[in-house]
C-alpha cells in the first residue's frame, strides 16, 4: 500500500531518531556491566558518571525508543489496516513535540544535571528541562491517539459490521491505556515536581509522587509490550507459514490488558510506607489477573506455530518446533519474534514472583529485577521493535536489507547474551546484590572494606552476557545503517503480513467496541487506587525539600 511522502518521512524520522540514540543507550548498558563487575573502580568513565549513564540507559532505551516506536508502528498499522492515513498536521505536531522533548531531556541528562534515573523519584531533583522534556514527549505521544480515533470512527461508519482488524484494536487499546496512565505521571511531573524543582514550592509529598509514578509505571510496561503482542498475533503465524489459532483469543487478551494494565501499579510499592497492606493485597490479586492474557497468548501462539509446523510436515508432539523458518534470511522477522518469545517464557514467569505479595521481599530492588526485565522489555519488546524498525525502514525506502545473513543471526545472538546476562543478575539478586549501584566502587572492589566476594561470579556472568548483547547490538547497527545507505531497488510501500485465523469466530459486538471496557477499566482503577491515595494522604508526614544527587544538604 503506497503512503504519502509526508507520512513516510514522519515514520522514518520516528524510527531513525531513537535507533541513533540507541547507540548511546546500548553503550551505557555495556558500561553498567563493566562498572558492576569491578573491571573499573571509579565513579565515571569518558567524563560520563555511572549514574548519569544509568539514567541515559533507562531513558533512551525504555522511554524514548519505546514511545517513538509505538507511535511510528501505530501510524503503520492504522494506515495499512484501515486504508486511511492519519491527519498530516497531527503526525507532524506529535513528531515535533516528541523530538523537542527528547532533546530537552537529553541536554539535561548529558549536562549531568539530571542523574535521577528514569524513575526520577523525588526528593532527588533534576534540572527543570528534564521534567519539561519528559512532559513534552508524553503529550506528543497523546496527539496520534485522538487522530487515530477519528480515522477509526470514519472506518467504523463505512464498515459497520466488520471486525476491527486485530492490529488496529491492539494499537487503539494500547494508546487508550497509555493516555489513561500518563495522566497520573503528567500530573506528578507538571504539578508536583516542576514547581518544586523551580523553587516555587518548598516541599513535595514523596509517597504521593511515587504512587502517581507507579500508576503510570506498570501500564508503561504494557505500553511497551502491546506492539510486540500485535506483531505476535497478526504477523508471526503468517511468517511461520500457518494461521493464527484463534482470533477471539487475541481480542480477549487485548481487552483484559485494557482492563487490568493500570490498576496494578501498587505492586511496585510493596516495600513502601504509607500504603496499607490491603491495597497491596488488591494489587497482588489484580496482577495475577493481568497474567491471564499472557498465558492465553502463550497458548494461542504455540497452537499457531504448531499449525504452521504441521503445514510444513511436522510430526509428533513437539515436531512442529523443528519445522519453523528460524534461519531463513528472507523471513528475518520470524527470528526477531521467536527469540523474544523464548526470553519471554522466563521473563514472564519471574514477573509473577515479583508481584506475589510477600515473595517480593526476597527480590525487591535487588539485581533480580534487571534480570527479570531484560527478559521482558529488553527481550521480546526490544527484539520486536528493532526487527520491525528494520522491516519498516526497508519497506518505506524500498531498499533491500544490508548483509541479510548477518541480520538473521542478530536476534539469536542477543537472546544468548540476555540469557547469560539475566542468569548472572538473578543469581546475584538472590544473594542480595543491589540494583542501580556502582558496585565496582565498593562491593566489588577487593581493597575496599565493603568488598563482597559472593557477588563476583554473578557480576562476571552479567559482564559476559552484556558483552554478547553489545556485540549483537553492534551487528544490528551495521545492518540498520547499512540498509539506509543502500540504493533503492524496489517499490516503496507499507506491507504488513496479515495472518488469517484458523478459528475466525463471527462478529461479536462486545469484542468490537471500546466503551464498555473503558467503563469497566475506570471502575477497577477506582477500586484499586482510591483507597491507596487516601492511605497516602492520611498516613503521610511532611513533604521533602529538593536534594541534588551530589550533595547531602537540601536546596536547589
Amino acid at each position, binding site marked *: 500500500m503506497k503512503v504519502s511522502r509526508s507520512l513516510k518521512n514522519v515514520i522514518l524520522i520516528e524510527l531513525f531518531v531513537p535507533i541513533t540514540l540507541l547507540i548511546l543507550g546500548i553503550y551505557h548498558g555495556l558500561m553498567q556491566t563493566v562498572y558492576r563487575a569491578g573491571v573499573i573502580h571509579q565513579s565515571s568513565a569518558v567524563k560520563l558518571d555511572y549514574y548519569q549513564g544509568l539514567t541515559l540507559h533507562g531513558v533512551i532505551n525504555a522511554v524514548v525508543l519505546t514511545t517513538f516506536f509505538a507511535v511510528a508502528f501505530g501510524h503503520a498499522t492504522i494506515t495499512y489496516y484501515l486504508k486511511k492515513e492519519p491527519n498530516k498536521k497531527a503526525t507532524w505536531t506529535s513528531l515535533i513535540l516528541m523530538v523537542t522533548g527528547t532533546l530537552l531531556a537529553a541536554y539535561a541528562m548529558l549536562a549531568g544535571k539530571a542523574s535521577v534515573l528514569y524513575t526520577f523519584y523525588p526528593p532527588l531533583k533534576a534540572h527543570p528541562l528534564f521534567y519539561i522534556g519528559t512532559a513534552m514527549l508524553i503529550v506528543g505521544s497523546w496527539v496520534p491517539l485522538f487522530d487515530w480515533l477519528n480515522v477509526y470512527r470514519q472506518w467504523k461508519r463505512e464498515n459497520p459490521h466488520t471486525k476491527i482488524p486485530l492490529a488496529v484494536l491492539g494499537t487503539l487499546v494500547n494508546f487508550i491505556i497509555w493516555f489513561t496512565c500518563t495522566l497520573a505521571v503528567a500530573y506528578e511531573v507538571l504539578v508536583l515536581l516542576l514547581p518544586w524543582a523551580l523553587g516555587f514550592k518548598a516541599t513535595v509529598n514523596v509517597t504521593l509522587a511515587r504512587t502517581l509514578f507507579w500508576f503510570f509505571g506498570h501500564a508503561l510496561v504494557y505500553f511497551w509490550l502491546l506492539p510486540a503482542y500485535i506483531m505476535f498475533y497478526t504477523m508471526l503465524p503468517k511468517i511461520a507459514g500457518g494461521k493464527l489459532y*484463534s482470533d477471539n*483469543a487475541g481480542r480477549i487478551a487485548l481487552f483484559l490488558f485494557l482492563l487490568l494494565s493500570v490498576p496494578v501499579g501498587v505492586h511496585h510499592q510493596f516495600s*513502601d510506607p504509607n500504603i496499607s497492606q490491603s491495597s497491596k493485597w488488591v494489587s497482588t490479586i489484580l496482577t*495475577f489477573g493481568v497474567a491471564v492474557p499472557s498465558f492465553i497468548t502463550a497458548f494461542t501462539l504455540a497452537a499457531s506455530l504448531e499449525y504452521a509446523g504441521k503445514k510444513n510436515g511436522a510430526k509428533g508432539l513437539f515436531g512442529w518446533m523443528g519445522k519453523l523458518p528460524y534461519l531463513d534470511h528472507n523471513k528475518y522477522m520470524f527470528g526477531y519474534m521467536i527469540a523474544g518469545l523464548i526470553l519471554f517464557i522466563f521473563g514472564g514467569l519471574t514477573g509473577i514472583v515479583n508481584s506475589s505479595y510477600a515473595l517480593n521481599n526476597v527480590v525487591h530492588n535487588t539485581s533480580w529485577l534487571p534480570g527479570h526485565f531484560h527478559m521482558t522489555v529488553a527481550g521480546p519488546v526490544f527484539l520486536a521493535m528493532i526487527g520491525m524498525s528494520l522491516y519498516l525502514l526497508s519497506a518505506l525506502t524500498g531498499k533491500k536489507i544490508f548483509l541479510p545473513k548477518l541480520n538473521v543471526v542478530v536476534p539469536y545472538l542477543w537472546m544468548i547474551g540476555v540469557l547469560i546476562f539475566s542468569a548472572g543478575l538473578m543469581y546475584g539478586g538472590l544473594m*542480595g546484590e543491589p540494583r542501580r549501584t556502582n558496585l565496582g566502587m565498593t562491593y566489588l572492589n577487593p581493597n575496599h572494606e565493603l568488598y563482597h566476594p559472593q557477588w563476583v561470579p554473578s557480576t562476571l556472568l552479567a559482564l559476559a552476557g552484556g558483552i554478547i548483547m553489545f556485540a549483537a547490538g553492534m551487528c544490528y547497527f551495521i545492518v540498520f545503517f547499512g540498509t539506509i545507505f543502500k540504493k533503492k531497488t524496489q517499490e516503496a510501500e507499507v506491507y504488513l503480513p496479515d495472518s488469517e485465523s484458523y478459528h475466525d469466530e463471527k462478529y461479536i459486538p462486545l469484542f468490537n467496541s471500546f466503551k464498555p471496557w473503558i467503563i469497566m477499566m475506570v471502575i477497577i482503577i477506582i477500586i484499586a487506587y482510591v483507597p491507596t491515595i487516601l492511605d497516602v494522604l492520611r498516613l503521610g508526614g511532611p513533604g521533602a525539600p529538593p536534594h541534588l544527587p551530589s*550533595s*547531602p544538604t537540601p536546596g536547589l
Partner: protein
Amino acid sequence: MLDKYEGKAIGITAIIIMVFLFSLLYVTGKQKTDVVECVPYDKTYTTPRINQIDSTTYQVFAVAKMWNFEPSQIYVPVGAEVDFFVTSGDVVHGFNIAEKNVNMMAVYGGINKTTVKFTEPGIYKITCHEYCGVGHQNMQAEVIVNYPNNY
C-alpha cells in the same frame, strides 16, 4: 465464542493463580513473612535510637541519610526479636537485610515497620538498594548478633 482448548488454558491458569494465592495467604496467616507494616507518620520516629524492651525484644529506630544509616551498628543477642522502624532524613533510601527478608524503603515523611527474629549469630549487613545520590554505593550498616555476651 472461544475454542474449547483456549478455555482449558484459561481454566488451568486460574487454578494455578488460586494455588499461589492460597500459599501466600497461608504464609501470611502463619506470621512467617509479610510485607512492611503501615505506621502513621509521627515525628518521634525520626530520631535514631535503640530501645531494649526486655531481654530479647528490641526496637530500632533507623534513619537513612545521604550516605549512611543511623545507628550504623546494632548489637543484639542471639534469639533477639527486633522491630525495625525505618524512615529517611532526605531522599529515598533502601533498607535491605537480604539474609533475613527485611526489604523496606526509607522514605521522607513515611515510617516503615517490620519485625525480624535473629536466631543465628553473625554480622547481618543492612544495604541501601535504592539510588540516593553519588554516595549510594557506600551505604551499608550492620546488625551484629553475637553470643549471649552482648559486647
